[in-house]
C-alpha cells in the first residue's frame, strides 16, 4: 500500500480498518510535487499538497474550480499534508477532488515498472473506494485542460459543519462559444458510490441554452443520473433535493455572469 499524505490511510490504520503488510512512503520521491502549465495543459503532480494547489497562482488562473473546491476540503492542518493524487486514489464518493477532475475532463497519468498509461477521469472511478489503478501502478500526475476565456465553472456543496464531508455537492464546468454551451459537465459529490457525471442533465442544459431548464426538469434529469445513498441522518431524497438546488444555481450562474469567479 502507498503512503502519500496519509490523511486517509493513517486514520484507517489507527482505527485498525486496514492492516497492510507493507507501506511504501512516496513523500521523498522527487518530481511528484510540481505544478506547471504548458501548451494549454495544467499538470499537477500527484504529491502536491492541497494547500499548495489551493494557493497556486497557476491553478487559480487555469483551473479556478480547484481553488474554490479546495477551500471545502477538510481543514488547514489536513490540507497542509493531504495530497491531490492521494485524494483521487482514495476515490471517496463524498470527496471534492474526484468530482472536480471529472467535471474538468482531466487525464490521470499512471506509472508502473512496465511503463506508463493515461486514464481519462471518467474511466478512473469505478465504485466505492475503487479505481482503475492496477496492482503496482502509481498515480504520478494529473493533466487538466486550461480554462480559456470561454470557460465556465461552478463549485458548491452543503455540509453540516465547515470542512465536513458534503451531504451533496456539485463541481461543474462548460464552455460557451458562439452562443452555444459546449460540453457542460456536472459532477456530483455524495450522490452515488463514486463521483457521478450527470449526462442527462448536461444534455438538457446544452440543448436549452441560452434558456435554462425549469427546476422540475432538472430534478427529472437528475433522477436518471444520480443514485444518492441513504444513511441514518440523511435520506436519499434530501441529497437529491440539494443536488437539484445546486444544479439550478450552477445553471443560473452560467447564464448570468458566465460563471467566471
Amino acid at each position, binding site marked *: 500500500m502507498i503512503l502519500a499524505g496519509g490523511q486517509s490511510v493513517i486514520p484507517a490504520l489507527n482505527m485498525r480498518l486496514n492492516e497492510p503488510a507493507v507501506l511504501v512512503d512516496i513523500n521523498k520521491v522527487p518530481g511528484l510535487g510540481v505544478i506547471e502549465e504548458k501548451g494549454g495543459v495544467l499538470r499537477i503532480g500527484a504529491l502536491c499538497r492541497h494547500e499548495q494547489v489551493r494557493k497556486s497562482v497557476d491553478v487559480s488562473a487555469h483551473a479556478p474550480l480547484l481553488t474554490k473546491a479546495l477551500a471545502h476540503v477538510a*481543514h488547514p492542518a489536513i490540507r497542509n499534508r493531504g495530497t491531490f493524487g492521494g485524494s483521487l486514489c482514495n476515490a471517496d464518493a463524498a470527496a471534492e477532488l474526484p468530482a472536480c477532475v471529472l467535471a474538468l475532463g482531466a487525464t490521470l497519468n499512471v506509472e508502473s515498472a512496465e511503463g506508463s498509461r493515461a486514464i481519462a477521469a471518467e474511466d478512473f472511478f469505478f465504485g466505492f473506494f475503487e479505481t482503475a489503478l492496477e496492482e503496482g501502478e502509481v498515480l504520478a500526475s494529473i493533466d487538466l485542460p486550461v480554462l480559456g476565456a470561454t470557460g465556465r465553472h461552478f463549485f458548491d456543496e452543503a455540509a453540516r459543519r465547515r470542512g465536513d464531508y458534503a451531504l451533496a455537492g456539485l463541481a461543474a464546468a462548460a464552455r460557451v462559444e458562439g452562443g452555444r454551451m459546449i460540453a457542460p459537465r456536472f459532477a456530483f459529490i455524495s450522490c452515488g458510490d463514486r463521483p457521478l457525471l450527470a449526462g442527462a442533465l448536461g444534455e438538457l442544459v446544452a440543448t436549452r441554452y441560452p434558456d435554462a431548464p425549469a427546476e422540475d426538469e432538472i430534478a427529472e434529469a437528475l433522477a436518471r443520473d444520480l443514485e444518492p445513498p441513504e444513511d441514518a441522518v440523511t435520506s436519499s431524497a434530501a441529497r437529491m433535493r440539494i443536488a437539484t438546488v445546486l444544479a439550478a444555481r450552477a445553471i443560473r450562474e452560467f447564464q448570468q455572469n458566465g460563471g467566471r469567479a
Partner: protein
Amino acid sequence: MSRRAITLRVNGEEVTALVEPRLNLADFLRQEAELTGTHVGCEHGVCGACTVKVDGRAVRGCLMLAVQCEGAEIETVEGLAASAQGSELCEAFVEQNALQCGFCTPGMLITAAELLDDNPAPTREEVRDHLSGNYCRCTGYQAIVDAVMDVAAKREMS
C-alpha cells in the same frame, strides 16, 4: 518490525531515537520525547488536539509517522509557549478565559499561531474558518476566537 533510528529537531533541540515504524508523531512526542503538551484525542485527524508544526506547517501529529519526520523541524506547544509570539497567545487565552479543561488548547494555540503567521490581521470569520478543525468540548469557541482577535489587534498596534 525492527526499530528505525531517526534524528529530528524538536523545539530547536536535536533528538535521536529508535522507533517502531508504526509509531505516530504524537505518540513519539509524548512517549519518547516526553513532551506531553501534545494531546491525543480522536486519533483520526478530526479533533485537532494533536496539532503540531512540522517544518513550519501545522499538521496532525496522529496522522504522520515518526519515521517520516527524519530531518524535520518539529514545534510543539512547549516550544511555542517559550517563544515571544506563543506566550502572547497563551496570555490572551488566559485573559479571555479561552480554555476550561485545556485538552484542546495545545492544538488551538498551534493552529492559531499558524494563522497569524500567514494572515496577521484576520477577520473573525477567517479565525473561525482556520480553527474549524479543532474541537473544544467545553464549547469555548467564542472566547477562543476573541483571544486570537486580541493578539492580532495587539500586534497591529505595536
